[in-house]
């Protein structure tokens, strides 16, 4: 699956759409996790800090933290994922988890482009 060029990425395998503020996990992330059966998200209004956990995603086998790509305020959560977490496997770059109101646009400068993220994933796999 190609990584959409309009999204920015983290080395912890999240993506953010800086236009809409939507945040999700990457195709690589869902593939490594396997069948996703549980998503736990913060409440709207919650403050999140860049690099800090804002929720949890669980596959049958594993529990993983979700890390905020940038700091900000949660303005919406994707409730459909609580009943249909498998959407994250089916459409990882469409199945957004939270929407963030970005606190400091300068933080976004540290995020990876689609091409850089793809390179990062390939390097990680090479280890």
């Amino acid at each position, binding site marked *: 699956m190609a990584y959409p060029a309009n999204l920015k990425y983290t080395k912890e395998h999240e993506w953010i759409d800086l236009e809409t503020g939507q945040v999700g996990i990457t195709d690589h992330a869902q*593939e490594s996790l*396997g069948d996703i*059966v*549980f998503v736990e998200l913060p409440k709207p209004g919650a403050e999140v800090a860049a690099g800090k956990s804002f929720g949890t995603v669980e596959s049958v*086998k*594993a529990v993983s933290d979700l890390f905020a790509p940038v700091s900000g305020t949660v303005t919406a959560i994707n409730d459909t994922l*609580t009943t249909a977490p498998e959407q994250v496997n089916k459409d990882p770059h469409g199945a957004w988890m939270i929407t963030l109101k970005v606190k400091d646009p300068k933080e976004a400068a540290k995020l990876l482009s689609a091409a850089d993220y793809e390179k990062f994933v390939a390097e*990680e796999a090479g280890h």
Partner: protein
Amino acid sequence: MSKSAEATGTLRKTALNAVHRQMGARMVDFGGWDMPVEYPAGFDGRPGGLIQEHLAVRTAVGLFDVSHMGDIGMDGPQALAAVQHITMNDASRLALGQAQYSAMLYPPGTFVDDVIVHRMDEHSYLLVINAGTREKDFNWARENARNFECQVEDAGDNFTQLAIQGPRAAEVLQKLTDADLSKVKNYWFTHGTVCRLKETLIARTGYTGEDGFEIYIPSDPAISRRVWFEVLETGKELGILPCGLGARNTLRLESKMALYGHEISDDITVWEAGLDRFCKLTPQKGSFIGRAALERQKAEGITRTLVGLEMIGRGIARDGYKVLDQAGKDIGVITSGSYAPFLKKNIALAYVPPAQSAIGGTVAVEIRGQAVEARIVPTPFYKRARA
């Protein structure tokens, strides 16, 4: 997303390692073995992955490489006496061609490992043991059988062990063997030609809660590969999937089968684990390692017991999470927990005090600092309908 480090380097490999990689399996370190956890690519155009693999075994058939399991051969004029001394079930009740679930115990009645004892011949037994405990188990068996006229052999590297499991398993395997599988009852075994391999051990055993077979073929990579693909080809029209250790774990959990290091360990006794019916304190069984302590514990009673939980609140209980009472007091611990793919519920096994183990009772599981409600339910969570 946090990424767990994948250990590599000195992992042991089964004869089918290259086949798993060729099939796109996701590999993990399991008890020091490089094993497939799931096959996301599926097979024959059917999607794979843990959930699909689990469902294939419940509704059709699945194929597992379980060659990491260990095998101990016990042979000699006093083989029965030696087996009786080191295991808790009554091996004297085994007919030739019969197998039984049992366990090797430490003197306090706790577990060295659980085992399946096969009676191969008049004075010959085969014990199938767990992967992570192979060396420990073998050393324990050899050490404790030394006063008997009985050879103890580590036969673990001799076999590729394949498990063919599910309601259509017999149909698939019957096409590949001259042995009449309808004559092999549950927990019995036979020998027959399988995929042109003569005298292959075929046991009607498994770790999934379904009907199924485990076959033991030579651990030669070329032979193992040929048989692996012949089984898959034969099972194609019946919906077979290659299955990894992920599905193996969720299948055994739905069926409440114990996993060493979780429900049983060197710290948990037979009565606590609820494995009473596989432990014989009869005169016919005689003395065995652990018996005296178990007799004492039977009189004194136990302080914790294994129960099944079904989550009421949102969340999945995982191994090591705390179990709390209604007042928030710590009363026990989760040993295994997962989303159950066939039951479509979040289930778990836990140790709690007997006074708080009543079916229908409510407890809480501490998940990331939150108390999430769970109900104590009858086990096994899943039981197959028997013909």
